[in-house]
């Protein structure tokens, strides 16, 4: 096998983005992944930081934070590149780093993110007169009445109406948003006709579960063109159509740029020559296969995805290159008792420390491999969940790693 210019390990958000950036720079890229990553579970909204102006907040972070290594310039470029890729796959996104956009969650609260799918952008909700929340017969886990109750707390002056549509989804298994989206992608008209029965005016909005198809924007566009009111999708329980659309948009882009995607390919080791990585080793059921590379991007995620593992307490490991993993010492710093609290969790700060090109470093700050770049959730030094930066760190580190 001829060496690839770049091998990306991991097909989550960070890996997909890194592969896209590298391919866009004209490099011959392979993406190796084991499992499909967490995008099908996610909303597709990209959080940079939970702050009114994420770019300002990034400037004020401590030096060990991944954003400080990445730099604001790369963050900005990453956001633009991301929106551009999505648009090329007919999946419009709105947003920038200087402000946040609200989206409506499955329970009727508002959540703010830097980059959001256009179909979820709830910025204009404040200007609407009446808001219809549409419940679909037979669709699991979507409760319009609850959404209305919660939205009323945010918008006490507006009129709300719960509307029920029967799109003939019953028969067969319990229908999830993914199933409904699949059905609607083949027959948009059933949803368009259903929505047309509502008595909506130009100044009203319709909120629906995320069921505008599983690819691109064509189902939404076809339905939108028949209605005057704005229609918004909420988030939902996984599998999540809005996350699936984003994943498919990336995969489509990678395929059209000639990136080779190898599924079911678990990387177990690197092939190294001094401070250079020359390839990676994939293990299959009976033997090993070497994929040679000039540069490797490690996008294997955190604890959840196996990018960082821990057999013994206090000894987290990075299993492929055996990179040193930073972790807060002492059990008292490890976690706070309340799992779902508003304090950061020590364990989620765990991860790999890097230089400004995102190459892994040891305790003394020495670079361990010259052509290995660490991107995404396996970076140490921040609690992505607490500070709501997972998506932003994933795409901006991927951009930096792929361009360094």
């Amino acid at each position, binding site marked *: 096998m001829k060496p690839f210019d770049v091998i990306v390990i991991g097909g989550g958000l960070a890996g997909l983005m890194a592969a896209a950036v590298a391919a866009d720079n004209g490099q011959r890229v392979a993406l190796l992944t084991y499992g499909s990553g967490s995008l099908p579970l996610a909303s597709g909204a990209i959080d940079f930081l939970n702050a009114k102006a994420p770019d300002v907040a990034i400037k004020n972070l401590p030096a060990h934070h991944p954003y400080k290594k990445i730099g604001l310039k790369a963050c900005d470029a990453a956001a633009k590149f991301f929106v551009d890729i999505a648009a090329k796959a007919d999946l419009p996104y709105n947003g920038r780093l200087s402000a946040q956009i609200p989206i409506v969650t499955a329970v009727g609260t508002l959540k703010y993110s830097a980059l959001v799918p256009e179909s979820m952008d709830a910025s204009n909700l404040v200007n609407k007169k009446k808001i219809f929340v549409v419940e679909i017969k037979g669709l699991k886990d979507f409760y319009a009445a609850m959404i209305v109750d919660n939205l009323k707390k945010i918008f006490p002056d507006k009129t709300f109406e719960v509307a029920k549509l029967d799109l003939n989804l019953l*028969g067969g298994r319990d*229908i999830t948003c993914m199933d409904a989206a699949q*059905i609607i992608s083949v027959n948009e008209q059933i949803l368009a006709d259903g929505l047309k029965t509502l008595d909506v005016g130009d100044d009203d909005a319709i909120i629906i579960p995320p069921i505008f198809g599983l690819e691109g924007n064509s189902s939404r566009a076809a339905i939108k063109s028949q209605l005057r009111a704005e229609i918004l999708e909420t988030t939902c329980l996984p599998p999540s159509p809005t996350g699936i659309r984003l994943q498919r948009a990336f995969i489509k882009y990678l395929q059209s740029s000639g990136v080779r995607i*190898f599924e079911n390919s678990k990387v177990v080791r690197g092939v190294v020559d001094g401070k250079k990585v020359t390839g990676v080793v994939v*293990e299959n*059921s*009976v033997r090993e296969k070497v994929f040679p590379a000039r540069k490797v991007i490690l996008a294997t995620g955190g604890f959840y995805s196996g990018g960082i593992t821990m057999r013994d307490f206090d000894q987290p490991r990075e299993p492929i290159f055996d990179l040193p993993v930073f972790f807060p010492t002492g059990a008292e710093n490890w976690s706070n008792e309340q799992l779902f609290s508003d304090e950061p969790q020590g364990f989620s700060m765990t991860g790999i420390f890097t230089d400004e090109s995102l190459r892994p470093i040891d305790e003394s700050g020495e670079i361990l491999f010259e052509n290995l770049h660490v991107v995404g959730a396996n970076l140490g030094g921040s609690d992505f969940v607490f500070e709501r930066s997972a998506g932003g760190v994933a795409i901006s580190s991927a951009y930096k790693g792929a361009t360094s």
Partner: protein
Amino acid sequence: MSDKTQAIFTGDRCLSCTSCMANCPVMAAIKDYRGPKLVGPAHGRMHFSQEDIEATLEFCSNCKSCDRACPSGVAVSTLNMLQRAEYYKTHPHTQAEDMIAHGERAGKMVRMMPFGATFANIGMEFGKTLGIFSKLGLAGERDMPAYASTPFKDLYSRIKQTAGGKKIVMFTGCFINDNEPQVGEAFVKVMNANGYEVLIDKGFNCCGSPLVVTGYLDEAKQHADNNADRILEWKKKGIPVVTPCTSCSLMLKEEYHELFAEHKFHEAAENVYDAFEFLEILQERGEFNDNVKPISQKLLYHVPCHLKCQAIGLPAANILEEFGANVQTADAGCCGISGNYGFRKDKYDISMKIGAKLFERVKRKDFDKVISDCGTCRMQIHHGSGIKPCHPIEILAAAYQ
């Protein structure tokens, strides 16, 4: 080696993340199937009993897209197949199921009669026209795969092999033996060109893949035992077993061990290679004969699901590209046929719906030839698009002159 072996122990690793559901082509095609997460790990974990059978299990095609999506190493599809076997312990098979599971037996019967292949093919033509297949529960829309006038195992003895010295044993697979012997010929030519004499072991059985998916697990186990024993014999002699059929190689390398959890299957698996996997290993060792005419074709490559599972990269694409071919992957998902799944009357529509994206891609005709390593994928592409694909080894064989 891999922690994905021995399916039965993998169900408990399920995190209910739903990634498998997002990737199951059957779920996308129909509303009836409850999907990999619920049918495989969830149901399989709690009940491996005959009384409690998941009613929609029959819809699983064993395409293994779920296994590839799973981040936790759950052998979802094999859990489904084990449960299916449990079901058939107390439920009779239909005549159609018996037929599609036992292609090897039918092939042998045909070969025992004079002009057997001709008559069988005429018979199948009549069967189709008269609607007999449809009455039996087979997909009347399809042509049954036509028998070649001479099966590969007979044709083989007439081939003058040029190589001496190094040897491999070819596991022919039923489809290549009975229906596409030209793929076998191409295989021999390529191996010869690389200094390998090709041996045939007439003691091998069908790999058992069609038996497993149709719930004949005990029979499949007999095939597995026989094949593994023979592979181990060859292993002792230092002779590798190589197959140009992707579903056979997956079965021999991985599924025997997943299904039956005996160490000998793993030991046998170590001596089995997919054809282009083997060639790429030769290339890495600097032993590949690259005295090849430049291949100037533009090839559209449908990568079979069962190849994607094997984690061996894309060796056919790599090798053909090295000699000048322009290889583009079709990237259109599962072809829908999944072995004998698409031959069932009640699964035909699902199978065609799954394949629709691939057929559209192929019909764009922006290439010289479609290639795919899997025989049933090739059949499905031909049926759905009218364009006949070939095995990548046929392209390589033609380039060795």
